[in-house]
């Protein structure tokens, strides 16, 4: 491959590529993102290749292994272009049918279609499925159309045109455009990217850095990984534009080593871009030099914090530094450094291509554009969704997410990861946006949206996040390290039924000090999950403390499992499955749980057939005594009558 030496050559190359590509040629795209991979997409992929060969279609069909399509719940996903026929939960054995019927005979394989859970109607096209229909996939949309390992695929959809334009515009105009777009950092803080860039641009230093923060540590959020895995060139292009704008010649991508596929794809993307002259020396003949290095994070949540990340890049333990001077002035190795999150960088080429005016049509007054959320937890359609800022939580959860599965009631939605908060049903009509969420006591964070139903205990959720953060606190400053430890201790006691009068007040006091006095955002925001649950679900705390009762029937120490003798049909299922051998009984003998032996694993509760539902959970009241042995036999009862 010869280098591309000017914007004109880039366009000529792109035209050449497109002329070789027939848009009407059948193309099978297979989602090969991490979630689909875990559901078996590698086997499906191998089978597709084999079948296409076997049926003699190798020259007539394109097979493309793409990044994440977002609808992870229904993976592995196969989409047949140009029609856009969507098949879900495809197994290797379905492949021959897809090839012989859909590809050869243009027929639909009914059983693999999406079925609307409400109407039982089968839906053929992606654009008509409610999960996709209600989204606005500006950033994430390309994922399903390109092979992340192929730079040609990215060029074919208009890739690197924004870079060419930015080089032509000159740095000042790029910064102006980003400022005008009011693009705010997608990593959590929501700081305007344009202002950050301008600060670095105006800093007098010679050496400057640009950094991609792909240390996506928030549990329940995986949009950055999906972007890096599925569309790495978009991030590289954004980063290169940023480097050009601030005058940097060296960039870093800090990515968690827990994301091997993301590391692989971004590394390939860098190699390819260098080969094409889109990275490295004299990019597109402009005289601008820029190189990018990948740094793998070794597993520390705090490294997602900007100063800690920079310390880690320097090859040291990732502890945060005080921010008397912002890192865009004095960052990595003391030089001006612009650090933005993956999704923020991925927005940059879009803004340069289509203009700030186009970008600002999406969103609310103060939050522009779209945001990718990972909609997870107790939700029917788990997956990644991209919506315009300002959509209500209700629309996201019900219209796109399909509501709560299993006929359960919605209880809360947790946004913003461990630094965010839980929002109750009353706030479902809240519009998502940086400021709106912060006012409600939560935050945007990186975009995790964890839905909880009536079975989730809110005290336990607060304990869970504090447990997480206590473990991840770097230990450098006292308020964070000790404050969280104390809060965790109290919360653990409450969930174990050892809560005392006055615990809530003490928690509130500790929370205040921790958030006021901690060094970095990890400690400052750590009390948020606790405070938001106290604000909206105080009665649950009180039930745990005063009545020793867990209203959600979730805290292990406060519940007991009990088999209702009236309902038990002595079917032996729970008895056989109990891992602790805690269930007594036998054929035609009503089963009884030995409370001494029971480990409360819940296996009996889950395995009892729904038509019996004899096992129930009890909290806050004593377990009824076991029925006397002579009354346990149910043999022949029905025969006698």
């Amino acid at each position: 491959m010869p280098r591309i030496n000017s914007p004109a050559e880039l366009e000529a190359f792109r035209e050449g590529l497109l002329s070789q590509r027939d848009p009407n040629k059948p193309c099978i795209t297979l989602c090969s993102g991490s979630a689909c991979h875990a559901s078996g997409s590698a086997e499906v992929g191998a089978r597709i290749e084999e079948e296409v060969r076997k049926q003699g279609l190798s020259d007539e069909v394109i097979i493309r292994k793409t990044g994440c399509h977002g609808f992870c719940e229904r993976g592995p996903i196969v989409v047949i272009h140009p029609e856009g026929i969507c098949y879900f939960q495809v197994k290797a054995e379905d492949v021959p049918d897809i090839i012989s019927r859909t590809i050869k005979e243009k027929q639909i394989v009914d059983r693999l279609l999406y079925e609307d859970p409400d109407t039982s109607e089968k839906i053929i096209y992606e654009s008509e499925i409610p999960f996709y229909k209600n989204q606005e996939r500006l950033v994430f949309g390309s994922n399903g159309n390109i092979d992340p390992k192929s730079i040609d695929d990215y060029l074919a959809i208009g890739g690197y045109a924004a870079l060419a334009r930015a080089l032509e515009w000159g740095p000042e105009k790029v910064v102006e455009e980003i400022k005008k777009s009011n693009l705010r950092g997608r990593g959590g803080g929501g700081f305007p990217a344009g202002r950050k860039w301008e600060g670095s641009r105006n800093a007098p230093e010679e050496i400057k850095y640009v950094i991609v923060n792909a240390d996506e540590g928030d549990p329940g959020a995986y949009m950055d990984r999906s972007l890096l895995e599925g569309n790495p060139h978009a991030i590289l292009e954004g980063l290169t534009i940023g480097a050009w704008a601030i005058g940097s010649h060296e960039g870093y991508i800090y990515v968690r080593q827990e994301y091997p596929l993301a590391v692989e794809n971004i590394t390939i993307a860098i190699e390819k871009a260098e080969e094409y002259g889109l990275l490295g020396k004299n990019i597109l003949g402009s005289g601008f030099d820029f190189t990018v290095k990948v740094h793998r994070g070794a597993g520390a949540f705090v490294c997602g914090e900007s100063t800690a990340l920079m310390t880690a890049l320097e090859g040291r333990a990732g502890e945060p530094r005080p921010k008397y001077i912002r890192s865009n002035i004095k960052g990595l190795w003391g030089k001006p450094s612009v650090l933005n999150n993956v999704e923020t960088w991925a927005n940059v080429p879009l803004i340069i291509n289509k203009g700030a005016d186009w970008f600002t049509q999406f969103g609310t007054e103060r939050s522009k554009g779209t945001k990718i959320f990972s909609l997870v937890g107790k939700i029917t359609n788990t997956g990644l969704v991209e919506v315009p800022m300002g959509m209500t939580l209700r629309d996201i959860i019900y219209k796109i997410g399909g509501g709560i599965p299993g006929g359960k009631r919605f209880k809360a939605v947790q946004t913003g990861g461990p630094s965010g908060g839980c929002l109750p049903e009353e706030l479902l009509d809240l519009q998502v946006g940086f400021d709106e969420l912060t006012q409600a006591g939560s935050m945007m964070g990186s975009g995790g949206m964890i839905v909880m139903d009536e079975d989730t205990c809110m005290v336990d959720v607060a304990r869970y996040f504090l447990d997480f953060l206590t473990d991840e606190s770097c230990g450098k400053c006292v308020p964070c390290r000790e404050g969280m430890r104390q809060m965790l201790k109290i919360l653990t006691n409450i969930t174990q039924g050892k809560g005392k009068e006055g615990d809530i007040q003490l928690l509130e006091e500790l929370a205040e000090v921790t958030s006021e006095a901690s060094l970095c955002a990890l400690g400052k925001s750590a009390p948020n999950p606790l405070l938001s649950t106290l604000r909206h679900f105080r009665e649950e705390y009180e039930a745990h403390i005063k009545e020793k009762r867990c209203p959600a029937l979730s805290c292990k120490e406060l519940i007991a499992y009990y088999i209702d003798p009236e309902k038990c049909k002595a079917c032996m299922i729970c008895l056989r499955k109990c891992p602790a051998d805690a269930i007594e009984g036998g054929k035609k003998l009503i089963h009884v749980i030995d409370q001494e032996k029971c480990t409360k694993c819940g296996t009996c509760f889950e395995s009892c057939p729904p038509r019996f539902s004899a096992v129930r959970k009890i909290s806050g009241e004593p377990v009824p005594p076991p029925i006397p042995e002579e009354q346990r036999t149910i043999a022949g009862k029905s025969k006698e009558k």
Partner: protein
Amino acid sequence: MDTEKIDRIIGKHDSEASSLIQVLLEIQSEYHWLPKEALERVSERLQVPLARIMHIATFYKAFSLVPKGRHEIHICMGTACHVRGAPRVLDAVQDLTGIKPGETDLDLKFSLETVNCLGCCALGPVVEIDGKTHGKMSPSDTAEVLKNYD
């Protein structure tokens, strides 16, 4: 311990001290732990005090200063998995293997770790064994899966 292998890894990163974490990651993935001799060699070659290497080796989760078992079990404790019952899966695995997170059994068969999010939230609760992801696990499924490893 193969000094040449360590030297090769260090050489790949231009023997730069700022690449320390990357060097340690590669040693970890090669040996599944960080042998003391390896760390001493790194210290010598990169001119970084051993104390600082130990600071890093104990700070980051990816590193282990003790040998790991033949099979590494990672149980996802991310929020999505948590609300779908990951703590019960963890309890079951602890009961079955007799080890707690961070430990390795005496036969060096299993090492158990909890991780904060594997990003497979649609499949929660998730258990990853030797890099293979098992989704939608229940305590009893876990027992079935663990039987396949020896």
